[in-house]
């Protein structure tokens, strides 16, 4: 049997609609599904209107060790609590202490594996928030992630549904086919309840392996129905149409950007790709797995270092790739909690509270470390010895939403939360 290419041939060129497709379209099969992308592109987000601002949220799953990401090297107790894991002071060139931290402000230093992001900080495009988090005290990955992704104070309070979904639903006007995308194996809770949001592990090989009639029949089967699967089917078919002409694998990053060959690097590359397709993309959710460093997390070698290098390299490549369009792009890096102040016997750290966030790109008043430092000794006094949270993560996110995304009352995105100013975002331009 000859297999027809449904959307594109091997060169990414759109195939002329076959006879059957024409018959189907004439028979009134939903919206014609060939060549629909250009209509959307021109109607909704053509060059005259410009592409919307883009928010990329990177979730470091497992609880990133904030104290070794943004190192409080000038807190006199840091090296006492972290005798084998502490990142050396900037300029410390002794043998056997690993790479030194990169100084940020005379008190904090950046983990050297994040060196690709140092220019962003120095040039004022990256802000750091330290001792930030939710008020969750379960120290459970799942509860703490759920709290943050729902935009709640802690795991036992707050509304169902994701904070990004609430933003998307509050500002939905039906004008864009793909407002949000998540590159992950399963959908993140932050997008739970959103329409026009798609979860996809990768866009490489994102095509239907069948002829045009099969595509048309699928579209008709999924045309009606309000159950979650049917809705997702419609969104999947929309994206297939929208990407019919595109070739994500063949797309060359711009500005010589070189992404790490990792799931996160590939996901960032694909965000840059989708953001340029004129689909109205506003929100992208990415995740990095494996931050649960109970054991052998290493100082400046080992797997925590590898994860940080992957993160730094991916974000830097993405900002380079976006080029001029970086001016509409903001990246937030967050994790469900930080880790215990004192290292454990396995050269790792257990689940803690306060952590670090990074905010980069458009609208950021960078080059500063935000948040009140609670002090390690003072934090340690309270059992079990976690960094106290002095900045509510919702304050940071509220500011990002208010300054970058479509106009929306941030109280609708974070119900019941009265956001306190952090000051890391410039006002709406």
């Amino acid at each position, binding site marked *: 049997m000859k297999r027809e290419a449904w959307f594109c041939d091997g060169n990414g060129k759109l195939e002329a609609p076959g006879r059957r497709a024409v018959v189907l379209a004439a028979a009134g099969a939903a919206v014609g599904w060939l060549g629909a992308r250009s209509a959307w592109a021109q109607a909704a987000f053509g060059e005259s209107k410009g592409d919307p601002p883009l928010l990329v949220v990177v979730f470091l799953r497992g609880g990133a060790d904030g104290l070794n990401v943004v190192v409080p090297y000038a807190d006199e107790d840091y090296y006492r609590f972290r005798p084998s894991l502490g990142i050396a002071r900037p300029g410390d060139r002794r043998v056997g202490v690993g790479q030194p931290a990169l100084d940020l402000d005379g008190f904090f230093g950046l983990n050297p594996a994040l060196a690709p992001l140092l220019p962003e900080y120095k040039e004022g495009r990256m802000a750091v928030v330290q001792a930030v988090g939710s008020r969750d005290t*379960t120290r459970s990955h799942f509860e703490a992630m759920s709290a943050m992704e729902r935009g709640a104070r802690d795991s036992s309070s707050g509304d169902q549904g994701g904070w990004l979904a609430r933003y998307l639903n509050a500002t939905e006007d039906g004008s864009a086919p793909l407002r949000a995308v998540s590159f992950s194996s399963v959908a993140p809770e932050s997008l739970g309840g959103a329409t026009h949001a798609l979860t996809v592990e990768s866009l490489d090989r994102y095509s239907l392996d*069948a002829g045009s009639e099969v595509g048309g029949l699928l579209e008709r089967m999924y045309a009606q129905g309000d*159950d979650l699967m049917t809705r997702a089917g419609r969104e999947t078919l929309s994206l297939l149409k929208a990407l019919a002409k595109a070739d994500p694998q063949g797309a060359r990053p711009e500005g010589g950007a070189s992404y790490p060959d990792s799931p996160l690097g590939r996901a960032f590359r694909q965000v840059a790709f989708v953001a340029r397709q004129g689909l109205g993309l506003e929100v992208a959710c990415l995740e990095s797995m494996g931050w649960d460093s109970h054991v052998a997390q290493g100082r400046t070698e080992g797997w925590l270092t590898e994860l940080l290098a992957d993160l730094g390299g991916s974000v830097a490549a993405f900002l380079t790739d976006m080029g001029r369009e970086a001016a509409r792009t903001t990246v937030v890096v967050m994790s469900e909690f930080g880790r215990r102040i004192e290292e454990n016997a396995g050269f790792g750290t257990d689940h803690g509270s306060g952590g670090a966030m990074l905010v980069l790109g458009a609208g950021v008043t960078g080059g500063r470390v935000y948040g009140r430092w609670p002090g390690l000794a003072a934090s340690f006094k309270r059992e079990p010895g976690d960094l106290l949270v002095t900045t509510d993560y919702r304050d940071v996110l509220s500011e990002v939403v208010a300054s970058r995304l479509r106009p929306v009352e941030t109280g609708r995105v974070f119900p019941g939360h009265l956001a306190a100013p952090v000051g890391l975002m410039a006002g709406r331009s």
Partner: protein
Amino acid sequence: MTVSRREALGALAAAGLLGAGCRAPLPFGREAAFPAERVGDDEFERLLACFGYGARPGEAAQARELGAEAWFEGQLAAPDDEPLPLLARLLRLDVMHLSPWELRDWPEAAVLAQLQQATLLRAVESPWQLRERTVEFWNDHFNVYARKGLGAYRKPLDERLVARSHTFGHFPALLRASARSAAMLVYLDQQASQARHPNENYARELLELHTLGVDGGYTQRDVMEVARCFTGWTEERGFLKAKGAFKFDPALHDDGEKVVLGERIPAGGGVKDGERVLDIVSRHPATARHVSGKLCGFFLGDSAPRATAAVEMAFLDTGGSVKAMLQALFATGAWRDGAPVAKRPFDYAVSAVRALDGHTDGGRPLQDHLAAMGQAPHQWPMPDGYPIETEAWTGTLLARWNFALDLTRGGIGGTQVEVDRLERRGLTTEGLAGPTHSRLIESGTTSAEERWALALASPAFQWR
């Protein structure tokens, strides 16, 4: 004219009545929507879809002859061994009988592939479907990520000693087996825990995920005390040792007094400290509630609240008999008339092969499809197991459609379905896609292979 179950459900859902009062709050912006088309309206189709991976053609009729309860009891009484042809194929897989230390010279990828192969073979081919379903549940409940720290070598033994030895047995025994599984201990970093500064990873997940549940009334202090109790629980290591066997190392153990959930554990207990903890949490009422809730969620989806009280009671009455819990779950009838449950990719793929009366060797081509769909067995990184929420799986549809197309056209090596034979037997796509979509599919001019692929790709077949 009688009103079908589907129409009744649809009307109830439209009126917003379904599950009112007993349903957990739905995520923001979501209403209780069910698929317009529904397969398995037949009680016995549903029986096999809930307690197995769906019926092969003709199996629902056989179950009808037997009666639902007799079928179910027969499943609970499954013999240890599989029928000879399947057993012969399983025994050719080295992971079925070798131990971690015997597998050590193998490439990790080969071990992982065989591990998945055994899982797929049994799910598709075994007549003891309830056992496979329940093993899937326990593998999720006591999740071990086979790609962390060479877990692939330890997981085969873990599955034999935990999920398969106690599938329908008693929860306390399951828990004890899991706590002595090197796969679990190393996955949750227990080998790096010692008296000087215990590691909390296993202790926390033991309380939060395996037993009490996050609302089960334990504190951070309890986590730290439990971590102290389990210091020294590790795996055998070192030259010429049976690497991957359980070992208690007294040199690493904190022998001081501990207090766990208000109970004093005196100093000097050694390995008994951990065992004492397992006793305490096994008979804690929060564990009965938590495990029952999860079991019901796995089998019944949104209708779980209809059964949890009965199942919890069965747990408490029998000291955690899994058989009794499953019997209580069955007796509620929620599997018969409850809300549809979205299939996870593993369920989807296995039920697709079975619905088309196909066969598989469970080899890598099929495993690759499962990976693309997001649910390769034993490869969920987090300790909570693959999610059961529908929302988690809505991004996998394209991979499902491509799987269905590949399956029916014979493109998955080692996996065969014969759609021509199905049609000669007079079977139609209606049983898979529902009447409306089946008519739509049959109205096209696609090949037989594509018609059956479309039936598997239909909205209805995504649910059970």
